[in-house]
């Protein structure tokens, strides 16, 4: 039965429907294998215990009924502690479920646990987790990417069929690319942020990871719903992403723009460039037009992103003061207020989080806000307009998900600027609030997955999935079980 673990969600649901395996049976198997391989990969901060309450059978119509889902530990859950990968929230038990979590729960999904991440989503390698790093299932000496590294590893390593992640500057797509799975960033406001522990609110999206595009559409059908608890929610109430994905007409003869500046050999490694050129030919063979386009101001993308996001982070993380919950609670009243804040916040936050709080506080301060924060907002506005203008000439954009394949654990951790550079290809979609998707685009000569990224105009999520499905069919480079995982599976005794 263990070969079932390699299936996608929709294949698995067909087995459920045919009565070949019961969801609870599969879930038990899923959890046994997840635990079996966990010491190698370390995807989870919290793995579900045996005997968690089964999903509500009444919800049998749920798009993903009975499918085990892992959840990034930046989304609140009432049945698992939620840490955001931080010491400051160690043992924190949220009083409510994130909206996306609740929608999955109501649709009858099993949860496998809470996945590891860079603290508060701040990082591109999952090495900034306050607890431990996660390993790439393709090469345990490399990072899985970040910040949703645990989510990506859990899907690639067969510990979960799909996963809920979050993406502020690439945190779903980049680890999906590094781990050889599909990662989707919906349009801003298409999945409720309620319960997404805020990092940079105007850039934060809930996203999802799966083994193919169809599973992404099914996830979107469950979680891509309007929410009264999120004032920025703008999801269409009755969208059917599966139907939109299957609407080939919507992408027949479409034009895909390839951003020249993102294909610059100075920026992007040779392996990745080759994979992108292959992807371009795949699209041409599938009947798409391809056009080379220029994106102005590429050199401003990272500075803009790395001003706005620490600024918002410094504000969002101000609430962690140990007064109502979290580390430091209840407060020791023998300390002065200053001493209390220092005692809670200094050890509570890791180095990268402290760096961004300091940066963010600085760029928002009187006298500096104009030169940094306000300037960055204007740049963001210009980038958004530039992207919108590009979409007047093309239907989609193609670019790598990352300039390189997964780098080694420890390789960049001491060089934040080099670490930030890994985000150059992904921040554009967040800055422009557009949907984007990363798809497996084959392996590098050294056997590491390469991610191919597509971006669509705002609110064209369904059409983006249609293009992604078209590519997936023609590329033939979809998810494959990493050799190391296949080995573990072979040795796994049910």
């Amino acid at each position: 039965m263990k070969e079932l673990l390699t299936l996608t969600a929709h294949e698995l649901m067909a087995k459920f429907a045919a009565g070949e395996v019961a969801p609870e049976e599969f879930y038990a198997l899923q959890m046994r294998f997840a635990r079996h391989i966990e010491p190698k990969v370390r995807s989870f901060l919290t793995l579900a215990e045996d005997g968690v309450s089964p999903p509500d059978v009444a919800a049998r119509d749920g798009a993903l009924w009975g499918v085990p889902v892992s959840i990034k530990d930046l989304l609140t859950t009432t049945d698992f502690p939620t840490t955001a990968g931080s010491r400051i929230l160690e043992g924190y038990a949220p009083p409510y479920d994130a909206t996306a979590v609740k929608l999955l729960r109501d649709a009858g999904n099993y949860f496998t646990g809470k996945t590891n991440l860079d603290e508060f989503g701040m990082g591109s390698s999952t090495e900034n987790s306050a607890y431990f790093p996660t390993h790439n299932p393709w090469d345990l000496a490399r990072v899985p990417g970040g910040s949703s590294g645990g989510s990506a590893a859990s899907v690639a390593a067969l510990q979960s069929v799909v996963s809920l992640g979050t993406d502020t500057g690439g945190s779903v797509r980049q680890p999906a690319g590094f781990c050889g799975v599909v990662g989707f960033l919906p349009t801003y406001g298409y999945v409720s942020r309620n319960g997404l522990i805020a990092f940079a609110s105007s850039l934060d999206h809930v996203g999802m990871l799966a083994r193919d595009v169809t599973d992404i559409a099914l996830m979107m059908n469950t979680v891509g719903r309007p929410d009264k608890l999120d004032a920025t929610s703008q999801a269409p109430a009755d969208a059917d992403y599966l139907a939109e994905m299957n609407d080939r007409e919507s992408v027949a003869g479409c034009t895909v723009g390839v951003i020249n500046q993102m294909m610059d050999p100075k920026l992007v490694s040779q392996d990745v460039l080759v994979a992108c050129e292959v992807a371009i030919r795949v699209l041409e063979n599938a009947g798409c037009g391809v056009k080379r386009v220029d994106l102005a101001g590429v050199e401003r993308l990272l500075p803009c992103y790395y001003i706005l996001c620490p600024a918002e982070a410094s504000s969002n993380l101000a609430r962690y003061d140990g007064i109502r919950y979290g580390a430091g609670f209840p407060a020791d009243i023998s300390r002065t207020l200053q001493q209390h804040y220092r005692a809670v916040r200094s050890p509570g936050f890791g180095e990268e989080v402290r760096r961004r709080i300091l940066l963010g506080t600085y760029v928002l301060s009187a006298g500096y806000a104009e030169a940094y924060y306000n300037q960055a907002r204007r740049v963001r506005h210009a980038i958004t307009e530039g992207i919108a203008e590009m979409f007047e000439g093309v239907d989609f954009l193609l670019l790598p998900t990352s300039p390189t394949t997964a780098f080694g654990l420890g390789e960049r951790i001491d060089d934040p600027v080099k670490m930030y550079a890994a985000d150059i290809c992904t921040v554009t979609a967040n800055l422009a609030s557009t949907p984007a998707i990363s798809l497996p685009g084959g392996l590098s000569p050294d056997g590491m997955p390469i991610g191919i990224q597509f971006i669509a105009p705002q609110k064209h999520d369904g059409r983006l999935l249609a293009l992604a499905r078209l590519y997936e069919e023609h590329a033939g480079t979809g998810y494959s079980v990493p050799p190391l995982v296949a080995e573990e599976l072979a040795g796994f005794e049910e």
Partner: protein
Amino acid sequence: MEYEAVIALEIHAHLKTARKQYCDCPVVNTRELADANRYVCPVCLGHPGVLPVLNRESVILAMMLGIRLHADIARHSIFARKHYFYPDLPKGYQITQYQTPLVEGGELEFLVDGEMRTAQLERAHLEEDTAKIFYQDDGSILLDYNRAGVPLLEIVTKPVFRSAAEAVAYAEELRQVLRKLGVSDANMEEGSFRCEPNISVRPVGSDELRTKCEIKNLNSFAVIRKSLDAEIARQIALYEDDGEVQHCTLRWDEEHARTVPMRIKETQADYRYFDEPDLPPLVLTDDDFAEARRRYESAMFTLEWDGKEHRFAPGTARLTRFFLDNTELRESEVAVLLEDEDALRLLFASNEISGAFRECANWVLMEYRPRRAEAEGNITPQHIADIVALRADAKLNSTQAKEVFALCFERGISASDAVSELGFDQVVSESDLQEICAQVIADNDKIIADIRKGKEQAVRALLGQVMKLTRGKAKPDEALAELKRQLGM
């Protein structure tokens, strides 16, 4: 040198909404520690991952005040985060409006010693309240988040007041306006109306704005007035001594009757404002304007006077002026009536029937209001008009009239039914009067003796007894004539 004060007021008023500003928690003003933290949720406690959702009712209420002040109401305004660390601030920032307030400019008329003045306003914007802090005797500090997230309207004037009396008169008027609009309970003791003046002084004739000081935590109008007067004196004394006023926040020290610094503001606090990314811009629709306008108009005060309908914007200054100009009411009486709309309406309705305004006013002020403090009662304008008429026709003396009023109040029966039930309509027959007078004369040997000795005024004492025995129904002149006849005077 002669100095004048330059005062601006910053007033925080709780908006009268059922729910908090950014979450669904009910707004309940609890006082007891035992009730602390009953009306809280993850949103107003600032839990990880929560998002604010704007309470539209607070917007409509703020718009109503904007209409009242003839201010500009922004069709498009944005929210901002104002950052500082304090335990009463759950998120580490307050969601407020910074660059684009909902209400901008405007003015409010108010009366000082019967004279109409106008205060110019700077702005009014929406924000949220903080938690309450309880400092315990054992040194512990307790936090009550029931108040955290309660909708606040911050209403700021330009530096337009030249004396404590002016500032207080404006604040009193604004409080009335908020109450009459139904926008706020505006109760100072309960903290739903908090007034923070800032003050500087300058030589009379100058138009400079000198360094100002703020006074916080003032919980009554009397304290505002005292603290402003003391602060004005303190600043003048400093300048007279060739000193400088330092920008600071002060509090009122009641014991020593002086303002004392809370903390020196050497530099402007850096609140690191930026636009709230969790709330889209507040865009007002025509429907919002229509609703605010409709609710504003239904809060206007309508009065029948001289057969004409008069409409007054919610507030007291204009109404007071109208009463002083058109009626015989004194300013203190107007103040009482404007606080008591039932009484005011009763007075005007009675007057519409009776036309005797002053008499109606006396009944409303002296008889109706004290009784209504005890019980609801059943008094209608017709009762008051009828009783006034009975008195004018001398059908009742004042004691009888009060008894009739009391009965009407208690049972709601008509004045004429009350008069007959009390027997005040029966006339004493001539024979009865003769008999009663004879009896009074027979029972009062001592008084008779006095009269015989030439103290003729003593006959008045006998008259009093006759009136008492007839329960006031005898006509005093007839009774006096009969007594004199029997006594042979």
